[in-house]
């Protein structure tokens, strides 16, 4: 089956960076003494970085901040966007809908990276601050998508039938509308996670939310750039891991959605035996 094939590919591509990021610090062990900057060999099988630290050690340590920040930011964005979107889709009060959605439109108009840099120049946020910031810039889009998808489902007779049954808001909003929009939202979450990873990595690359010599894949790419010609692994390995993380998450969401799609409707893969 080609769907399981795609699924396996997605798992394999995302698995490597995810396992490294989450379990890496456990196996990193003792950092050991520093060596000369940008050298290869000599017990360091990926060489040393710009201050002479072991690159493999850094790779093992550097994934967790990126992955955890991205996942936390995505989760946080949805935690705010879901109730906002569902509430404004299910209400019949126009003013409430305006009140919930209009302020977000203002935020939507500001470029996200600009906003992050602006806030960072004033507050100097840490990792938590970065996650909050990235979540905040993602809330407007996410809320709009939730509302648009939910508004379509909320207009179906099924919701009116639930109202006639005197059903609770929770059952209508989460039990029916949420369930019916799950496919759209899962697709959006996949794209959004990629965008958030990109944003987190870019912010770290620009030095927002992390120390300049922190063990962080994005920081590694930035700091070791100068030695790219001498010792490429210090840039290439963390860069590849970030790419694998974003590509893998997209592949995985695609494959998961395809499988749901085939489960829901009969699939069109089988060919007609003959066309008279």
């Amino acid at each position, binding site marked *: 089956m080609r769907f399981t094939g795609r699924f396996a590919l997605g798992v394999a591509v995302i698995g490597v960076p995810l396992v490294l990021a989450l379990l890496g610090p456990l196996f990193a062990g003792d950092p050991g003494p520093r060596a000369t900057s940008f050298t290869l060999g000599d017990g360091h099988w990926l060489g040393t970085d710009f201050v002479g630290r072991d690159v493999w050690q850094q790779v093992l340590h550097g994934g967790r901040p990126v992955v955890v920040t991205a996942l936390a930011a995505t989760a946080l964005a949805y935690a705010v966007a879901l109730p906002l979107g569902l509430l404004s889709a299910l209400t019949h009060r126009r003013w409430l809908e305006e009140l919930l959605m209009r302020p977000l439109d203002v935020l939507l108009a500001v470029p996200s990276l600009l906003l992050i840099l602006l806030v960072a120049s004033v507050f100097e946020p840490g990792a938590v601050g970065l996650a909050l910031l990235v979540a905040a810039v993602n809330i407007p889009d996410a809320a709009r998508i939730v509302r648009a998808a939910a508004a379509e489902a909320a207009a179906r*007779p099924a919701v009116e039938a639930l109202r006639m049954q005197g059903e609770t808001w929770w059952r209508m909003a989460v*039990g029916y509308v949420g369930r019916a929009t799950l496919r759209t939202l899962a697709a959006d979450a996949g794209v959004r996670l990629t965008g958030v990873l990109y944003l987190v990595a870019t912010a770290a690359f620009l030095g927002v939310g992390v120390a300049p010599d922190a063990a962080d894949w994005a920081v590694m790419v930035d700091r070791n750039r100068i030695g790219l010609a001498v010792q490429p692994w210090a840039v290439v390995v963390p860069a590849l891991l970030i790419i694998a993380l974003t590509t893998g998450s997209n592949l995985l969401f695609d494959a998961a959605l395809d499988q749901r799609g085939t489960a829901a409707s009969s*699939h069109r893969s*089988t060919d*007609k*035996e003959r066309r008279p």
Partner: protein
Amino acid sequence: MTQELNRVDPVAQIANLRVEIDGRAIVDGVNLRVLPGRVTALVGASGSGKTTTGLALLGEYPSGARVTGDVRVPEGGLVGYVPQHPAAVLNPARRVCALLNDIARTQVRHLPRRERRAATRELLLRALADAQLPDAEALLRRFPHQLSGGQQQRVVLAQALLLGARVIVADEPTTGQDALTKSRIVDQLSAVAAKGIAVVLLSHDLDVVRALADDVLVMRAGQVVESGPPERLWLAPRHEWTRRLLDARAPGPQHEPPPIAAQAVLHVRDMTARHRDGDRGTTVAVRVPELTVQAGECLAVVGRSGSGKTTLARCLAGLHRDHSGEILLDGRPLPHSLRQRDRDQLAAVQYVFQDARAAFDDYRPVLDQVARTAVRLRGADAETAEAEALATLTRLGLPEELASRRPARLSGGELQRAALARALLAQPRVLLCDEITSGLDTVTRRGLLDVLAGLLRDRDDLSLVLITHDLDTARLAHRIAVLDAGELVEQGPAPRVLTEPRHPFTVSLMETTARLAAGT
């Protein structure tokens, strides 16, 4: 078939067609000869294989199907298709003229470049005229959503005619249409046939089939059980199934007199319902000066599509808030929106939706969804509610084995019974049924009408309001109210309205129905 007909060459032919999905035959050994200028009708209950056979003429099969047999279509394979929901095949972003131009352009390639434009235009106008669309100039500038359902259907027909299709497959063209629209569709299809084009009609609307078809094939479970000209079929059906199908046409009228000295359960006073109409403010959808529903009676609200009958029912149910005037339940005013109605008021007025499939949650078993009514509106605990739901469903002809399935695995008729059960569990005083039989085949429809009649008999306190465009369904009622263009034009006891209608609109509605039924 007579000797003379056998001499005419068929434009399309199906021989011994068998379509199988997962080892189950949907169509089994069907033979069909489509003759030019004649209307061939395939009739049968939903799921009998009509549509699969019709689509086979287009070379379309359900996905994953195993097909054996022989399908011959005219040279070039030009077969037109008019689907049940024409809006789905018209690009909503393009005007009618653009949609038709795309096809017409391919027909004028042989002409010199500067003559093409005029030739295209002429082709367009001729196709529209052939499809019985008057006022073509204005229509060409509109978008599909600005057309009525009937007009959309005719635009699709015009597309097929432009292509030069010699066979046109019309899939349930009259389903859900009122009698006046139906008779127009009959005229339009017979005009197409008169031009020497073969029409294949897939329908469960027997009145239309009788009025239109030259040849009828009765299908059941994928097989043709009987075929012949409609006159012979109607007078002397040979197969048991044909007899049942034709017999199902006439539902038994309600002979019992309406309950005497009954008290008004629902009383509508000076109600005017509005629709918000974009930026242009509001339009009045329906105006009802006075309407009552007595306890234990069945009231039918009859009218064409767009006459405001659904809006009226939605106002009563609290689903349409934008109205003025009063709705009294037992003399006490009901809040306009169901959000403001308390539990007893909600339970007292229940609503059954036209499209049962859309009114159920796809992801939960039907039984669970039905049982929730008892939990929410009568405060029953989950177990009692489920037992009650099961009892009600079984009484309406839906055994546990079916009820525990998800909606996707039930048929339209079964779902409509489940929807009725869901409303009945609230023990309503008034049950509003919005076109619940339209879109069902005759056998299923009669089954559902029998259920309704049974409800009226068994429960003295239950009042039914039937919203319908179908006068056969309205015969079930004690009283009939007729709506036209949002105005209540006539109301009175059913026998009186049906036999001696007073308002001109009611008269024309009766005449068209009678004309269709007589098969002329």
